[in-house]
């Protein structure tokens, strides 16, 4: 019997046992779809997080006051001792390091923004001109804080705030009141949306000196540092730690984090999670495989006399084996294909429901899902097919 006829004959068989075939195909399809959808979710989450971190800026090193204890706890919560403040002077020293391309000191607080009878509480960032390139932010209009402008009362508005306070679109050069001080709007940020739980469309940015005055503080919230290159990140981190230790009387009371390390950890964790989830989904496929095996064994038992007949009219053991094998192949092929489509449809639905989540099924997962379906189907058919091929024709014909 040639391949084509084997496939056709086994297809007729599969098609005529409709309910049974549908059940198997469904089980297989759900398994494959689970692999595709779950990996799409996992990988989507990974890409989302990585994307969020990357949008913070490249080669970013962040300095924050307080020591991150190796015994746990978090920055600033070191046992007993209050960490020494991080000052503008500290930032300037960091900026002098050869490994550092640029730096931006940062203060954050909340203040009331008033203009044209409108009033609203907003998040205020105090920084310098370098904040723009370091955080890779973009301007929609006007200019950012001017270089060396710590003493000129400029303000940059998030796009949402600009729209709210100046609906007519004339923003640049307008006066606006923040807290008790007056500012001149110099620029508007481009729409960026939410990033790291922080909506940059609703922030204002003012020169660091004004911010420290406004919040009545000398200490910085962060120093954002951009290393010269990817390779300079670790040396920069070491140099920053060293210089600040010297400046703080030999106390290592700051924490320096590199986003690469954070990013890599998240990347690794989420990759592992995706793999784990894919593995669990693959187990459901193995269960489907066991179902296929059971159903095929029942089929062999039910079709015993038919197998005997085929042998009587001259089918070889190999013919019989291939027929059952091909049946499993059809079933798992259909299951794999439908599951693939179902999974991609599911991922599409997720993307519709959560547009922020890039829930694209990874290619490896789709391939692995379908391949696992085929493999389990084929493996599951080996035993039943061998059993059918081994049947004694005389006994089989009598239905025993």
């Amino acid at each position, binding site marked *: *019997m*040639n391949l084509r*006829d084997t496939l056709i*004959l086994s297809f*007729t*068989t599969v098609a*005529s046992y409709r309910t049974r075939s549908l059940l198997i195909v469904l089980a297989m399809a759900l398994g494959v779809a689970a692999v595709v959808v779950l990996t799409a979710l996992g990988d989507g989450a990974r890409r989302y997080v990585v994307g969020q971190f990357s949008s913070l800026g490249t080669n970013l090193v962040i300095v924050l006051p307080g020591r991150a204890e190796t015994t746990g706890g978090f920055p600033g919560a070191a046992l007993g001792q209050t960490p020494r403040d991080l000052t503008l002077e500290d930032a300037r020293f960091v900026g002098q390091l050869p490994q550092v391309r640029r730096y931006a000191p940062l203060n954050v607080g909340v203040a009331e923004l008033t203009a044209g009878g409108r009033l609203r509480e907003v998040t205020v960032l105090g920084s310098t001109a370098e904040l723009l390139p370091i955080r890779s932010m973009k301007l929609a209009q006007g200019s950012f804080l001017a270089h060396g402008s710590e003493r000129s009362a400029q303000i940059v508005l998030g796009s949402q705030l600009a729209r709210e306070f100046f609906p007519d679109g004339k923003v640049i050069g307008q006066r606006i009141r923040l807290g008790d001080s007056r500012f001149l709007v110099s620029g508007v940020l481009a729409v960026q949306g939410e990033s790291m739980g922080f909506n940059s469309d609703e922030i204002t940015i003012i020169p660091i000196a004004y911010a420290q005055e406004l919040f009545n503080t000398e200490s910085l919230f962060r120093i954002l540092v951009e290393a010269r290159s990817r390779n300079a990140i670790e040396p920069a981190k070491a140099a920053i730690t060293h210089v600040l230790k010297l400046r703080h009387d030999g106390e290592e009371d700051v924490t320096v984090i590199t986003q690469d390390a954070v990013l890599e950890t998240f990347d690794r964790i989420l990759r592992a999670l995706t793999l784990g989830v894919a593995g669990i989904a693959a187990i459901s496929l193995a269960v489907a495989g066991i179902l296929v095996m059971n159903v095929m064994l029942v089929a062999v038992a039910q079709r015993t*006399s*038919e197998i*005997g*007949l*085929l*042998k*009587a*009219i*001259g*089918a*070889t*053991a*190999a*013919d019989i084996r291939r027929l059952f094998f091909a049946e499993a192949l059809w079933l798992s092929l259909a299951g794999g294909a439908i599951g693939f489509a179902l999974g991609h449809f599911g991922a599409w639905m997720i993307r519709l429901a959560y547009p922020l989540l890039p829930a694209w099924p990874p290619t490896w997962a789709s391939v692995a899902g379908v391949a696992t379906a085929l493999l389990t189907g084929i493996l599951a058919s080996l035993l039943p097919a061998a059993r059918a091929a081994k049947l004694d*024709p*005389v006994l089989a*014909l009598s239905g025993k």
Partner: protein
Amino acid sequence: MIRLSAITRVFHMGGQEVRALNSISIDIASGEYVSIMGPSGSGKSTLLNVIGLLDRSDSGHYELDGTDVTDLSENERARVRREKIGFVFQSFHLVPRLTAAENIALPLILEGLAPAERKSRVDAALDAFDLRDRAHHRPAELSGGQRQRVAIARATILRPTALLADEPTGNLDHRIGAEVMALLEGLHHAGTTLIVVTHDRELGARAHRHIAMRDGEIVADEK
């Protein structure tokens, strides 16, 4: 040409030995028309199965068309069955999912014939067995006589040298049974060796050679 020498087939049933065939020796020439009769359990079906290479003997020798087929491998036996033997069973043994035409085509598919060649042969068989208008019916939609005609068409589609029928009329009423026998006899007239196992004396008497069995032995062999 079928030549059995001292063929013995023993079954073991719960520690008990059943000699289904006890040292049977017969020659059946090509083109003969033989009936095998005997009480239930006398070994008729077993003999037919050994002749048709469905079953193996435990001892003795079997020569078919001049070649020793006693010790052929499973694959070779399958090939010989396909090429030289046609089986007709009491219970028809049609594949329920396939139409009459598809059932008839099965041996051609196993043989690996091209679809076009298959179609012309099946069409000829449908005509020869008066099944033209039943070609696309499934076995469940056919009468007993039609089913057995499909089975005979399938058994003879590859022009076997020997046609082995085990109570081919057992599930048919008398009139239809006689029609089926006439069909088989027509094939015999065309040159096929015909061996029929039957309980029906009248039908058995129509053969040209009558073999009677009892307890696994041939007790009479008359022409």
